């Protein structure tokens, strides 16, 4: 799929088209800004579009009078080198008047017709409230709405946000009202603060929703001020739990996206992936698990809108190098390989292999295995005083822990062992007292 441009430089992006049609909403690329502070008003949104974002979900509108926010709103979980792993916020929905927001939305959509502009919405869980606001929304010309049924802080205390999203019956009801009083696509944004994410996704589909987006933020307390004995962020002398987002939540979001993608009841339901997406690779992972668009917030809040340049470029290059011309070409490709534990191959064996030329003799693999795993890495002291770490193949269970703790990339490989035995999952395994297939070998 490599192409040569006029100057003779091979550019793998030339044949790649990043544009999407997500549940009827068109955008030049799959990178949208999630409903959050970065999409609070026309000023920010127009800067985002100028930077190249494919779409924006406008920060949640509600009934007047607008919400009032407190001072001190964010806190973070830091990595040991002060990189922000996770961000926590206690900010509410828009604190500007409905009228002002609607006027700005209309103008921005007119100025940027090729971009996706979606309005996030949250009003009380009564039909009248939705019937009143939806015509006003429709009049802006925006491309669709996203129902904020997931805000985990402040709003649930008033019967909105996650208080609705945690109740599948209410999710279905609100989706139904929206489809009744609004003609354009309706996306239901799901809260992860729930036991089984499939339940509200199924409810949204039953209510007629065109798509779901997930995840909203996760209930969280990031850290404490141990001198003042209060959690962050501190408002006066007190704190409250917030919503957690950023890179740390990506694994939770990926799983929930896959759960919905794998669920026969919701198969094919468009998903807008949200949760810690910071790079083109993160985006590609969400898309490979079935997302049709991705939404970004924390990464932009930490680095500004310009990050989208690299996201688009990196994704297009990777797609070009792998022969994917459009997002749809690889969307959902990893779903078939994501399965229940019971269908994993019990006969598959991999063991760790240490590349002694790359080993720096830090011993982390040894102590991790020795103390907490299967005592399968031996520690030797050679005559010249150096150390040598060797895998005891017979004891290695192929858990990957040594590879994970090794600081040198590519030093420890997990190597598949040829056993000569065919695929056999737990439902077929003779060691499983509840197996579904009895003695497959005996039948031969």
């Amino acid at each position, binding site marked *: 799929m490599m192409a040569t441009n006029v100057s003779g430089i091979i550019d793998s992006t030339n044949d790649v088209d990043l544009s999407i049609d997500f549940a009827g909403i068109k955008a030049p690329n799959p990178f949208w800004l999630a409903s959050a502070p970065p999409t609070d008003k026309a000023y920010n949104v127009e800067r985002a579009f100028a930077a190249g974002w494919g779409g924006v979900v406008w920060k949640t509108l509600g009934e007047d009078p607008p919400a009032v926010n407190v001072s001190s709103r964010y806190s973070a979980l830091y990595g*040991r*080198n*002060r990189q922000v792993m996770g961000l926590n916020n206690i900010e509410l929905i828009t604190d500007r008047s409905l009228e002002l927001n609607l006027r700005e939305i209309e103008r921005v959509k007119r100025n940027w017709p090729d971009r996706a502009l979606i309005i996030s919405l949250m009003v009380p869980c009564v039909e009248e409230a939705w019937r009143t606001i939806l015509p006003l929304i429709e009049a802006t010309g925006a491309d669709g709405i996203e129902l904020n049924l997931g805000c985990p802080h402040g709003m649930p205390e008033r019967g909105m946000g996650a208080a609705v999203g945690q109740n599948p019956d209410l999710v279905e009801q609100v989706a139904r009202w929206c489809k009744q009083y609004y003609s354009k696509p309706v996306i239901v944004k799901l809260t992860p603060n729930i036991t089984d994410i499939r339940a509200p996704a199924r409810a949204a589909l039953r209510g007629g929703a065109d798509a779901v987006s997930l995840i909203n933020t996760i209930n969280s307390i990031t850290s404490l001020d141990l001198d003042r004995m209060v959690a962050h962020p501190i408002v006066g002398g007190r704190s409250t739990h917030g919503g957690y987002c950023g890179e740390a939540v990506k694994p939770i979001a990926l799983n929930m996206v896959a759960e919905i993608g794998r669920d026969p009841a919701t198969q094919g339901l468009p998903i807008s992936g949200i949760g810690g997406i910071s790079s083109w690779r993160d985006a590609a992972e969400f898309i490979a698990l079935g997302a049709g668009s991705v939404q970004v917030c924390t990464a932009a809040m930490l680095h500004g809108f310009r990050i989208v340049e690299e996201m688009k470029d990196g994704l297009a290059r990777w797609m070009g190098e792998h022969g994917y011309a459009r997002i749809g070409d690889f969307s959902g490709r990893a779903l078939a390989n994501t399965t229940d534990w019971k269908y994993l191959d019990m006969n598959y064996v991999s063991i760790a292999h240490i590349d002694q030329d790359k080993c*720096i*003799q*830090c*011993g*982390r693999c*040894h*102590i991790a295995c020795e103390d907490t795993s299967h005592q399968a890495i031996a*520690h030797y002291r050679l005559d010249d*005083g150096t*150390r040598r770490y060797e895998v005891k193949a017979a004891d290695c269970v192929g858990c990957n822990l040594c590879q994970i703790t090794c*600081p*040198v990339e590519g030093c420890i490989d997990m190597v598949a062992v040829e056993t000569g035995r065919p695929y056999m999952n737990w439902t077929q395994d003779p060691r499983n007292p509840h197996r579904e297939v009895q003695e497959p070998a005996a039948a031969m």
Partner: protein
Amino acid sequence: MNKLNHLPRSAASAAELASRFTDLHPALTPRQAEIESERCLYCYDAPCVEACPTGIDVPKFIRQIAYDNLNGAAKTILDANILGGSCARVCPTEILCERACVRNYDQEAEPVKIALLQRHAIDGMTFRRHPFERAPMTGKRIAVVGAGPAGLSCAHRLAMHGHDVVIFEAQAKPGGLNEYGIARYKLTDNYAQEEVAFLLSIGGIEIRYGQALGRGLELATLRREFDRVFLALGLQASRALALDESSHASATAATDYIRVLRQSADLTDLPVPASAIVIGAGNTAIDIAVQAKRLGSEEVTLVYRRGIEHMTATPHEQAIARDAGVRLVTYAQPERILLDNQGHVAGMRFTRTRLAADGRLEASDETLDIAAQAVFTAIGQAFDVEALSDMQAQTLARDSGRIRVNDAFRTSLPGVYAGGDCVNLGQDLTVEAVQHGKLAAEAIHFELMGKAEAA
């Protein structure tokens, strides 16, 4: 030093000169320490621990720094090395812990800055009282001769075990080479004294100054009045060039000049040669050459009879000299010092040398004259035999001139132990001296208390 008194003083102001002797490696800021501590891989069976002569648990203290526990980090260091603060400044870590660091591997080629992290922990400690407690009093008294790193380390460990210690020190101040011998830009300000004051705050240690073995103080007296004796005499004699009488008289021992330099409150008092020759190839040669440059010598030439690859100064030290603009002349051996008509040093004549086919060094017919106002010798320190001149001291068994000890730092005389540079173990490093003192103290304690229990 008198032979240099005719030379001019520096034209620079005292403040300007002082500013040239600030830290060679400035301390890390808290943020730099945070970043650097993150780089430590917290190795199992860490090579850096093994490479440290005092066996400091390096991964542990770095992890403590990373988690904002500076007092914990300091305690980890001091447990193994009570002079961890000065060792962090003077250790040749490029041949010790930092050379062993696994981060030296090809992909990074950059060890964790262990010495600077160690200094960060020690400089940042905020103990409300001395972090070591003394065991109940044993009633035992131990004499330590020499208040250098070995003697101080031994005294501290003995005091910790409940013994009382009297240190006999020849100089007016404690610290040994830390006070009198280390390059001024490696151990700045009054750090040596501050560290000793901290060490002594454990209690139970008395220092008597102006007391030198062989000069009024006798080993027999110490053995009679104390339960045990630890000799930490150091190497008090500078090796001299084997040259004619007048050359011998005209050369200045580098250690003498450094001692005066370190003790000068006002560096404008020092005579500074416009040009100087340094004879030697070790770290002291580098120290004097670089310090002369910093004082304002325009031309400093380090002359060595062999090649760069044979120098004992570490590549790190050689780089310091190069950065300071020191000129290096190799394969030239001293012949004689040239004097002007007033009898002052005017230069030195060298004979060119070369390596013969069998690897031996041989002189050529060629000579080389280098003009200089001063010739500094830094060809090594030797044991001062005068210290062992009394009847009993004379009987001490010796190895290549220095005092012979066994694995437990016991000499041939019952009850007498020795350690540090005056014994013939290791490379004469400060950190090794600290370890000798510590181990000798443990051996003394074991012997004393073992015997007490038996009786």
